[in-house]
């Protein structure tokens, strides 16, 4: 069994051979925003989940117009092939890819293994920040078929349809918010959305080199917990970053037709008045 959409990932060697390909833009998106400055793949640009992609005022993403400006300033054209990579097993690379698809950029891939594998293979890193000729990028209207909002999540929970909580087991049980000396994590209640199964995101990647696990292992992992392709699946975590990776795995590596990421995630649900919670 191979991945459902093998073209959605590329290996580090492919990237190494396309460093100067004008039709390809390599984009680093990290959990730690300073990593790019410490050294990145030659020619890669940075898209930071926080300073680049978040709306400066509302809890939302940048607007379509702001997104167009980001792409235009990075020299991304509507037909550019985008390759995302990053730290932490590509969490934020998947998050950025998800948002680019939200605004209609379909031609986007993940570099399997991310920063970790690139570094392990002793491939070159540079501090030089490239600049590319400005483009005039035209985004599409947001694709809400890949993004879940709270009302839809509530319906999904009430109907006991598939919900995947990809946080660590202690976050799922609500134990973590009660740990002594643990800082306020932005949610007033602990636990999970009723009906959600707990499949921590990390189970989808190999710990040694951050690459994705083989298709058959992934299928066994999700189907074994009742997460099957025949129904709409909603994934969530704390702010939607770890669940972007699970969204990517379900949608592109396993080919589930209808998968949504709930970016409100626990920092919304755990604060939402009257929202049902299980422990």
């Amino acid at each position, binding site marked *: 069994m191979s991945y459902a959409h093998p073209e959605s990932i590329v290996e580090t060697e492919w990237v190494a051979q396309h460093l100067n390909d004008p039709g390809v833009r390599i984009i680093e998106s990290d959990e*730690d*925003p300073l*990593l790019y*400055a*410490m050294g990145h793949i030659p020619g890669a640009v940075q898209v930071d989940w926080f300073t680049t992609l978040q709306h400066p005022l509302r809890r939302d993403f940048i607007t379509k117009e702001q997104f167009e400006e980001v792409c235009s300033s990075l020299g991304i054209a509507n037909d550019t092939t985008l390759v995302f990579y990053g*730290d932490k097993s590509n969490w934020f690379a998947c998050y950025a890819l998800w948002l680019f698809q939200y605004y209609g950029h379909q031609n986007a891939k993940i570099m399997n293994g991310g920063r970790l594998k690139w570094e392990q293979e002793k491939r070159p890193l540079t501090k030089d920040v490239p600049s590319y000729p400005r483009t005039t990028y035209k985004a599409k209207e947001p694709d809400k078929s890949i993004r879940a909002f709270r009302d839809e999540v509530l319906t999904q929970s009430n109907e006991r349809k598939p919900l995947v909580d990809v946080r660590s087991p202690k976050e799922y049980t609500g134990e973590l918010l009660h740990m002594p000396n643990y800082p306020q994590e932005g949610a007033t209640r602990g636990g999970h959305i009723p009906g959600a199964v707990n499949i921590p995101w990390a189970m989808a990647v190999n710990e040694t080199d951050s690459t994705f696990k083989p298709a058959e292992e992934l299928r066994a992992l999700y189907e074994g917990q009742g997460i099957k392709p025949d129904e709409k699946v909603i994934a969530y975590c704390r702010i939607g970053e770890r669940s972007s990776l699970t969204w990517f795995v379900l949608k592109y590596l396993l080919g589930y037709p209808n998968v949504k990421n709930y970016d409100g995630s626990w920092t919304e649900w755990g604060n939402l008045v009257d929202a049902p919670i299980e422990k």
Partner: protein
Amino acid sequence: MNLPPKLQEIVDDFAAMSREEKLETLIAYAETFPPLPEHLKNARSQMEPVPECMTPVFLFGEQQADGGIIFHMDIPPQSPTVRGLATILANGLNGCQPDEILSVPADFFLPMNLQEAISQQRLNGFAGILAHMKNIARTIRAPKF
């Protein structure tokens, strides 16, 4: 209550910076992250962990002859932001007496306006590193029997 002078200087500097300058300065701090002294290598079990950070962070404090504390830190290079924030605290507090360290308010960094450059969770980590530096200062200050 005044902050220790070196820490106050850093806070004032950041308060006056644009978002880009803050990020550049954090990078500069991360690049000057001090190496771990030989005797603390592989000594995490003797060090103070900081579980508030998403990164493994371990601290160690050594008291000098004049009573001041010098902090040593074990933080992986894959986490330059945490390294940068920890270096700010070490630069601002190294050499201070335990009581001076304990007098730093937990929210001393608010005037730095770091939230425009880094996420809230990282600020929790920053506050966590300070809280554990205070733990170390408290332990060192305690009378020894």
